[in-house]
Each structure stands twice: as C-alpha cells, then as structure tokens.
C-alpha cells in the first residue's frame, strides 16, 4: 500500500474513532511502527491530528467567522462537548417555537440546526448567532438591542436604554456557570444575570445548558433556585444526586449517549 492510500485510511479512521493507536495501525495496515509514526507526523503537519504517546487524537474544531473581523481574522473554536450539547438542544425545539439563545458556544450549533426547522423565531443578543442564522428564511431572527461589546461580540441590553423585548418566549436556552443544591444556579457575568431575570418572567420554559464542571460550584450572580429550570441539557458524569433531584422534581434531563 502506498503512503497516500495509508494516509487516506488513517484520516478516515481518526475521523470515525477520534483516536488511533500506533500498534493497532501498524498491525492492520501491515507496515512497521516507524512507518506509521512518519505518517502521523505528516498528518499532524496538515493540522488534522495531534500526536500523543502511542498514537494520535483528532483535532476537533468547528470554526465560525466573527461578524467583526479582526487583524488575525479570529475564528471562534467550539469544543466537541458544545457540539453535543447544541445537538441535544436542537432536539427539543418544535416548529414555530419562539426561542431565546444566549451567547454560549453550544447555541451556535443550535442556531445551525434551527435553520432546518419551520417558522422558528429566535431572540438573541449574540452577533455570532445572528451571523449563523442570517440565511434562515423559514423564520425570524430578532436581535435584542443594546451597547456593542467587542470582546463578547454581543449587544449588551443592561443599562443601555433599549428595552428588553416584550414578547412571550417559549424556551430560553441559557448557559449556566455554576450549580449547587443549596445555593442554586449562577452565572459569572452581570449581563447574563440581567438577561436571566428578564427571561424568567417572560419565558415559558428555561432550558439550562450545564457542562459537567458546573456542578457543585458557586458562582458570582445567583439567578435562580436549582429547580427553577424546566429542562437541563448536560453531559455524562454529572453527580448522581443532581440527576435524581432534577428528575424527581419535574425537570426534563437530557444527556447524550453515543451509541
């Protein structure tokens, strides 16, 4: 087998399995381990993978062009976890829903998926979300006004003089930074805290997106009690007692299982 064929096979394998092992590769491709290492070096220089001890891992990136271009043409990198959470979020959206999306990473994936649904109205303060959905013809994107914040690429509604939209929202997708049984849920940014307070009164359901590191932490701005949310989008490995507590108290808990 020529190197070019091997490289193609390794590219495919690592895309599917996320990691490859030098010894297994050398056995299945029937070449020496040294040859495999050289192949992996080549692929690493292409930017597809990163070599590790005994093998390599896939470089997971999804890039989103920023609405405001910087000198280096900065791209926003979205982690694999956020991708999974975004897909989970998308499966609870119904046609003709009215949603709010905050600036959290997974909502960029959610925004992509919404483009294939019908009649969805999206309120957001994130210019990145707007950029992704600009071509969405089947529904509406409504930008919540405010003062432009360059570092977060959002319009900051708090204290801007621009009123928060007075419309009923079905589901609000918000990223939570800390969750604790006794101390409730919290965010670490005062704009996010302000938005949550507005959404609590206007939204039918709050969808809390919570990654694993969020649990058993206390944050800067408490926004709600832990049972104040209606849906939780999370990943594996969260403490069992939170899972039980949510489920027994009427909170729909969504978690991805990779089958």
């Amino acid at each position: 087998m020529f190197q070019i064929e091997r490289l193609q096979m390794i590219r495919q394998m690592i895309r599917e399995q996320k990691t490859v092992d030098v010894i297994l590769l050398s056995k299945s491709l029937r070449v020496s381990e040294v040859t495999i290492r050289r192949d992996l070096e080549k692929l690493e220089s292409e930017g597809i993978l990163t070599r590790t001890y005994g093998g390599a891992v896939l470089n997971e990136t999804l890039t989103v062009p920023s609405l405001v271009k910087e000198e280096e043409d900065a791209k926003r990198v979205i982690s694999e976890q956020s991708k999974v959470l975004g897909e989970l979020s998308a499966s609870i959206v119904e046609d003709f829903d009215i949603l709010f999306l905050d600036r959290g990473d997974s909502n960029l994936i959610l925004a992509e998926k919404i483009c294939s649904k019908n009649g969805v109205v999206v309120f957001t303060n994130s210019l990145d979300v707007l950029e992704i959905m600009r071509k969405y013809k089947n529904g509406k994107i409504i930008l919540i006004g405010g003062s432009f914040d360059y570092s977060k690429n959002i319009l900051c509604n708090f204290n801007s003089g621009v009123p928060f939209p007075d419309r009923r929202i079905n589901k609000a997708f918000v990223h939570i930074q800390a969750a604790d049984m006794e101390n409730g849920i919290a965010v670490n940014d005062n704009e996010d805290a302000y938005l949550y307070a507005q959404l609590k009164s206007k939204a039918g359901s709050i969808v809390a997106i919570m990654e694993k590191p969020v649990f058993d932490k206390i944050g800067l701005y408490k926004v709600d009690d832990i049972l104040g949310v209606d849906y939780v989008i999370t990943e594996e490995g969260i403490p069992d007692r939170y899972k039980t507590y949510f489920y027994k108290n009427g909170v729909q808990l969504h978690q991805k299982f990779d089958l």
Partner: protein
Amino acid sequence: MIFTMAEVSKRYCDNVVLEHVSMKIEGGKVYGLTGDNGGGKSTIANIVCGVVAPDEGSLMMDGKRCINWNIKKAMREGVFLVAHETTMLPYLSVEENILLGINFVKRNPIWGTFIHRMKYKKKYKELLKRYGITLDTSVTSIRLSRSMQNIMELIRVQICNPKIVVIDEVDTNMDVDSQKVLDKIIKDLACAGSAIIYISHNLESIMKRSDVIGILVENQVIDMMDASAVNAESVMDTLLRLSKEKPPKILLRPQAMIFEMKHIHNTIIEDFSIEVREGEIVGILGLDKEGDASFTNILFQSKGVKFFRGKEVKIGMPQEAADSGVILLDANVIQNYMFMNSSIRENMLPYSILKKHLSDELLNEICRRYLKKLAITAGPEDKIEELSTGQQKKILIAKSILSEGEIYVFDRLTDNIDVISRIDIYNIINELKRNGKGIVLISNDFNEIFGISDIVYKVKEGKIIQKINNDKQNDKKLYR
C-alpha cells in the same frame, strides 16, 4: 381489627421504593391501592404479609407491635397474600391445595388438625357451591386457568376466617366469569369482617370494588379517598398531577415506515394493528406481562399479517424477528435473557458478533466500549449478577443494540429499577430514535408512555381503544 403501618420505608440498595408510608387498615373495609410502577404497591403487600421486612417504621396489629414479622407469624395472625403469581402446587389436586394451609392456621398437633380438616373441607365445598363453581376438585391444579387458580387461592384463604387479605394484581387478564366470582368473594370477606387490600392497575376495577382508594405516587401513599366521592378520571388526574417526574422528550420529523402489524388476533386480542416509523417511539398501554395479551404472544404466536419495509414477513420466533430486523427485549422475564452465573461479556455479546470468531482481546474491547457508552461501571469479566437490576437491563439494551436491528421492542423495560438507570435508559432510547430506529415501548406507566412516546396506543379488553398523537412537548392534558 385494626392494623397500622407507621412511617414504613423500604429501599433496595440506593433505590428507595417506599418512603414514610403510613396506612390504617380496619376490618370490614376494602382498600384499593394503585399507582406507579416502581414496585411500591407490591412492596406494601409484601411488608403487610411478612414477606419482607421494612427498613424503617413499624407494624401494629390491634395495638400490639408486630415484632420480627414474617410469613408464618402473619398467617397465624390471619394475614394472607394472594398474588398474580399463583402458589398452587401444580401436581397436587385442587382439594389438596386448598386444604394445604390448615396446618398453618391451627397450631395444635395431630388430632386437632384432623378434626379441623373435616370442618374446612365442608366449608370450602359450601363456598364453591355458593359461587357456582362446578369443577372437579380431584384434578391436579395445573389443569386450571391462572384466573381459576387465583380464585381457589382466595377460597383457601377465605375458609380460614382471615383478618386481612391482600389481593395483588389478580384481576389482570381475568376472564369475565372469574371476575364475577372475585366480586362475590370480596363482598363476602368484607361482610365477615376481613379487611382487604386490593392492588390493581385497572382503575375501574378498583373503583368498583373498593371503599377507600389510596394512590401510591413517588414512593408515598397519598390521598386515601372515599371511593364513593370520586370517579376514575379524578383519580387518574390526581395520580398524574402528583407524579412530577418528566421523562426527557425529543422531537423529530416522522420518517419512512418500517414495521406494520395488521389485524393481529388471538383468544383475547381482537384486531390489533400498529405502525412504527423511523425515528418514532410508539407506546402501548394496557398489555399484559405474559399470556395471550402480552406483546410477545402478539408478535410471535397470533394470527394476522406483519410487514417490514412494505414486504410481508413471517415472524414465529425470536430468530425470525431478529433476521427481519425486529429486536425484542421482554424485560418481564429478564431471567430468560441472562446467564446469571456468567460474566457481563458473555451476556452482552449477541450471536451475530460471536459467530465472527474475533479474538478475546477484541471482544473485551467491544464490551468495554459499550459499558462506557452506557455508563455502566464494571468490567467485561465481572459477574452480571453483581449489578443492580437497572444496570443489568442496560447490558441487555447493549446486546440489543449490538444486534443491529431497525425496530427495538422494549417490554416493561423500566419496571423496578433505580432512578439513575431509568433516566439513562430514557436518554438511550432517545438516541436510538435520533439514529432513525423505530422503538416500541410496552408499559403500564402512563407518565412514562405519555412522557416519551410520539404515538400512544391504549389497549383495553383486547382491543385498541385509542390511538393518540403525542408529538408535542410533554403536555399532560393528553393523558385522557
């Protein structure tokens, strides 16, 4: 006679089945008990009759504490259990079975028992006459239908002048004639001063037969209501209102048809027709766990036609179903699926993988991968019997997934398992749905079926009485 349960709790490992349950049972009244499928109702039955001991709380009979309560003590005090699973000894005659219990009731030795035997023989024969039962009591009990066996067990208890009779799910799939006899027996027992705890899923039968109705929701008995003051709908409403648990629901657009069953019929089922599409969860309420009205029977042993992707298929046994792409996991008889003394690996890998003759290393790797995917903390070589029921069921789900079907049928998958496994299983089912599989869920848990399914079929007395489109987010109004 007054029997009280006070603050009784029971848990199996981390799974809390009863939490601070208190009940007061008075002679002469019928207490109907219904509710979730978490095993709580049967656990109450078992605790009252001494089959299991509570972890917390106390039992009192007529003001006296029941210490070290067990089956023998319970029976001596006149507390008896008649459950869906009959305990008639199959190769003894009906009469021998009925008179079997006398030795327990009367303590005194030989002579006493002999004289009493005559008395009880006369008694039961009178009862048979009273209820219009004309069977030959010398036949072996295995010849009787399950319904009739349950009736005989009730008569066996009745002749002992019981203080409390616990009737657990005896009316499921009971024929009409036996139902009439059951009515009469319950009335006679109540008139004679016995207290009856009547457990059932069938709201109408509970309404008909009970004086007081208790609902078991989330491991607690709530709302002991006067039966005459309520109707079936309000009981259902209370049940659903109090049950806060919400299975995670996802929404997908309906896709191509995979599996259709048309006009399936047998001795109990009439004209059963369902459709299952890609990416769809079909829930079925009202089927039995076993017998003619069970899905296994409907799938394999009944008359009618089945279509897989438009082509007619013959499915007479599990292998034929699997070949067609229909994987059945009947968790009612989970013992039939598991080799208890074997490792997890031996239980997880289906024949379709084993016949490829892969190396041990590779098999272990596959096993480990699925253990990780399904969040089971154990290794491939660990013994399956060491896992909790919920984790065992996950192993069987892994096996189903490895069998690569297009339709997955899960019968009573989430009965009697811990909460974490239950949540995980719902999310696993949702993932199968996302992957374009068709899933059939059979259960009597309204909350679960309406929580997670796209289409719900309600079965009653062998017929599909309603087909409901449930494609919105968890809207409780649809429960009617």
